[in-house]
């Protein structure tokens, strides 16, 4: 193992950690001199700079075929999604952090950078132990980020997130120990070899099941989603954006790696008439439950943040539909959709944060008359929610369409598409989701607000966090190949299938 080569591979993460430390140091120096509070704008600027440099380093780094250790891999899939996560993280940084001023602003952004570091490391590993450590680095930072500023709601969010997350981590670690017991290795590629050698033992299957339960917690798949509504409601907008967009994308990459590299041979099938035991069936059940739970419960919400949380559960369901099909193009379209979903939900959180600033409330009725108060916010909200509902020509529509068609192509018996039952359920649930997205848009476009005053302009960063995702969603909706092409290519090279 060559340490200097390893360090070069980890340069983007190193840049993030250094920025975080600088941020902490500056903030402490500021406060110890009792001058004044460390300005949030400076913290945002510093974090932006760090993320941009990390992105630049990532872009310039040569694509290493093999780093000599499974701990760190920088295959095309990892590089692509590290870029995606940095981008989503940057947009999250630009959001206003909290509804109230955060006294410890330096710590807040330092933790954010630590969680981003954890997310990046999680993407680029084929080693189960390292995966767990990286995931917990990201998660622990996120638990803390949910608790700023210390209000009752935020503390509730943070505590619930921590308790549920801690239990899920325990499940996952327990499962990982089973997998190690079965194969005597923590390397995914070696586990694949061990599994291919003979019929899967109960030990391996139980281990995989436990790991998937742990990941389902992180992805907010029903019935493991109970933390999501409270976190979305209580946590600051920045944290919600990070949890919903970046962390979900990372969770999906991890599942794709785990299942398609390590456990490809125990996929089984969820196809009607061709059912075989394996993870495909578990994912299909999780997908069905998530889509039904998420969509039905979202119908009853009056708080937009909680509505977005249930929509997150439903969208995890759609992603799992594609994964249950166990195909490379289906996984590619799921990766496409998770990026687009992240952009849309991040944008929706950004607009919600703007409405909260003006109305100090995130209830549906506080969106009334948004189109008169701020046409920009209203149109952007239209783009985000229509994309989530799957209205063309926005990227969310294409993503769902691609996932459903690729999942349908998974074979069943007698020339019949096997997953038709699951895809059918997904299509119908997605139609139902239009109802609750429209109920927000109805407030924004149809109802009259209490007054016709124009709302004050957003800060530059906040406006960018609204405009950039909206433009990307329109662009990717019209030209999906811009993202789907690289993802397909990266998957082909990284999975070696």
């Amino acid at each position: 193992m060559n340490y200097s080569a390893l360090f070069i591979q980890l340069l983007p993460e190193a840049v993030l950690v250094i920025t975080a430390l600088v941020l902490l140091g500056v903030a402490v120096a500021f406060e110890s001199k009792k001058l004044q509070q460390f300005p949030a704008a400076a913290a945002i600027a510093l974090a932006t700079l760090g993320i941009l440099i990390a992105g630049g380093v990532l872009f310039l780094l040569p694509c290493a075929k093999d780093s000599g250790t499974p701990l760190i891999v920088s295959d095309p899939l990892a590089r692509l999604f590290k870029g995606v996560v940095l981008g989503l993280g940057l947009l999250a940084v630009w959001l206003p952090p909290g509804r109230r001023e955060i006294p410890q602003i330096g710590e807040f952004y330092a933790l954010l950078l630590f969680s981003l570091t954890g997310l990046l490391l999680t993407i680029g590993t084929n080693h189960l132990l390292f995966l767990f450590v990286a995931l917990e680095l990201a998660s622990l930072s996120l638990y803390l980020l949910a608790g700023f500023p210390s209000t009752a709601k935020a503390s509730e969010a943070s505590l619930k997130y921590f308790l549920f997350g801690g239990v899920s981590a325990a499940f996952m670690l327990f499962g990982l120990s089973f997998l190690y017991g079965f194969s005597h290795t923590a390397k995914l590629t070696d586990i694949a070899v061990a599994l291919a050698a003979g019929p899967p033992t109960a030990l391996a299957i139980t281990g995989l099941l436990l790991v998937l339960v742990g990941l389902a917690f992180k992805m907010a798949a029903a019935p493991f989603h109970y933390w999501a509504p409270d976190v979305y409601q209580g946590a600051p907008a920045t944290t919600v954006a990070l949890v919903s967009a970046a962390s979900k994308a990372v969770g999906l990459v991890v599942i794709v790696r785990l299942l398609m590299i390590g456990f490809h041979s125990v996929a089984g099938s969820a196809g009607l008439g061709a059912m075989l035991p394996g993870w495909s069936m578990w994912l299909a059940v999780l997908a069905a439950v998530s889509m039904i739970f998420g969509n039905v419960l979202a119908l009853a919400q009056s708080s937009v943040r909680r509505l977005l949380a249930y929509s997150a559960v439903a969208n995890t369901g759609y992603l799992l539909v594609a994964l249950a099909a166990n195909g490379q193009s289906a996984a590619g379209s799921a990766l496409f959709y998770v990026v687009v979903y992240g952009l849309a939900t991040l944008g929706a959180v950004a607009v919600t944060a703007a409405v909260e600033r003006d109305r100090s409330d995130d209830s549906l009725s506080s969106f009334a008359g948004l189109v008169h108060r701020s046409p920009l916010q209203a149109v952007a909200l239209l783009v985000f929610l229509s994309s989530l509902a799957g209205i063309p020509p926005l990227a969310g529509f294409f993503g769902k369409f691609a996932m459903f068609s690729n999942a349908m192509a998974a074979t069943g018996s007698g020339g019949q598409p096997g997953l038709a039952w699951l895809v059918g359920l997904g299509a119908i649930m997605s139609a139902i989701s239009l109802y609750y997205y429209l109920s927000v848009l109805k407030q924004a476009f149809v109802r009259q607000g209490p007054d016709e005053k124009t709302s004050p302009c957003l800060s530059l960063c906040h406006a960018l966090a609204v405009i950039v995702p909206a433009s990307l969603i329109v662009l990717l909706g019209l030209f999906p190949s811009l993202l789907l092409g690289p993802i397909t290519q990266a998957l082909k090279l990284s999975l070696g299938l």
Partner: protein
Amino acid sequence: MNPAWTILSAFAGVLLVLLLPSRFAGLARVIALAASIVGVVAAAAGCLQRLTHPEAKVWDLNLPWVPELGIHFHLSANGISLTLLLLTGLVAVAGVLFSWNVSHRPRAFFAWFLTIIGGVYGVFLSRDVFLLFVCYEVVILPKYMLIAIWGSTNKEYGAMKLTMYSIGGSALILIGLVVAYAAAGATSFDLDFLASVTYSSSLQAWAFPVLFLGFAVLAGMWPFHTWAPTGHVAAPTAASMLLAGVVMKLGAYGALCVAMPLFPQGFEQWKWAIALLAVVGIVYGALTALAQKDLKFVIGYSSVSHMGFVLLGLAVANQWGLRGAILQMISHGIIAGLLFGIAGRVVYERTHTRDLTELQAFDLWKSLPGAAIAFTLATAASMGLPGFSGFVAEISVVIGLWRAFPWLTLAVAIGIIITGAFSLRAMHRAFFPVRKPSDTPAQILPSLTWSEISAISLLLVVSLAIGIYPKPWVVLIDDGLRSSLFHSILSLP
């Protein structure tokens, strides 16, 4: 001028309207009118070219779009597409003219209006089912906004109901399309390719009803028609015209050009059910229209009845039936546009009521003679009197029906009689009330404006033209029916 100008003009119009500074918001209607006229001219030019050069190759544009899924940006204009484009253009022009007085947020109104038009053009031109589905879905959100913001009478409920029915139909269409894509080897979404594959009969047996039903919801097939009357009544005039005039045709067009060619065996298996539901729709729609108090509800239910003829023509599936179905789509598009324009704009904006009893107080044939004459002619067209387009269309369907399901003609005849009854009842009560000399004299209403007169005459002239000289339309439709898409349908026993 190639037919792509229809789509281009509509979306260029949307952009221009949105870019207008708020001082010039009044110009939005002018831009919308210009865009609609460009569209109608492009469609008419396409029709003329096809008529004069019937042997020429069909206009076709095929560009790769998403190679990962085998999606192409594929447009093509055969005779059926061209006639339906012309219909859309005509209704669009009339719709803009009938909305000349919209003053509440005019830029947004015309932007949504033109988006619907562009989407409809796109559906009629697409030869790639993904592109077709995109255009089909583009229409949904504008429909909601037009009704919920500018509508009347229970508008938010009507808008939401219509939208949920549309998206529910779309979900079924999505399932049907991706099933066909997957079963055909997951390589291409091209309509002609998907139609050339023979799917297993067990697949066709369930995929056809799913796909057909998805389209039929939007075509107003009984018992999934209930969105149509509530939606039409709640919608502002231009939106009712578009909904009844062209959007319901999208459903019928999709059923004809996608569902039936993709799964011909499934169609063969289910056509009796379609015919039955269509006939029930014809009679039920007419009977319900007979009992309505609101003039727009009468027209709304009459749309359900008239669209029953389209579905019946599809179920018959011989040359006469399909030709009649498309003629009825065009005829009903024009007549429904006309009726909704007169009821929603000309009458309602002046009297502020559509209640048949309350309208008696206005003595409309004296206070608004122009509207009374126009409505009488439109009613005659709607009843299917010879000389109007409705006659040509319905007689074709009935001839086709006689060859396929002779017994059902009896039920259709009853439906036609009831249509006469409800049309005359509504016309009589609204425009020619019986008044005692002792009643207070009706107030004087402002006479028709130039925009109303030109919209009414445009639609009336076209309906008469089709009724008197249907040949060019029939030639164009037969040209479209020769497409390889319909071989499997027309060759059924």
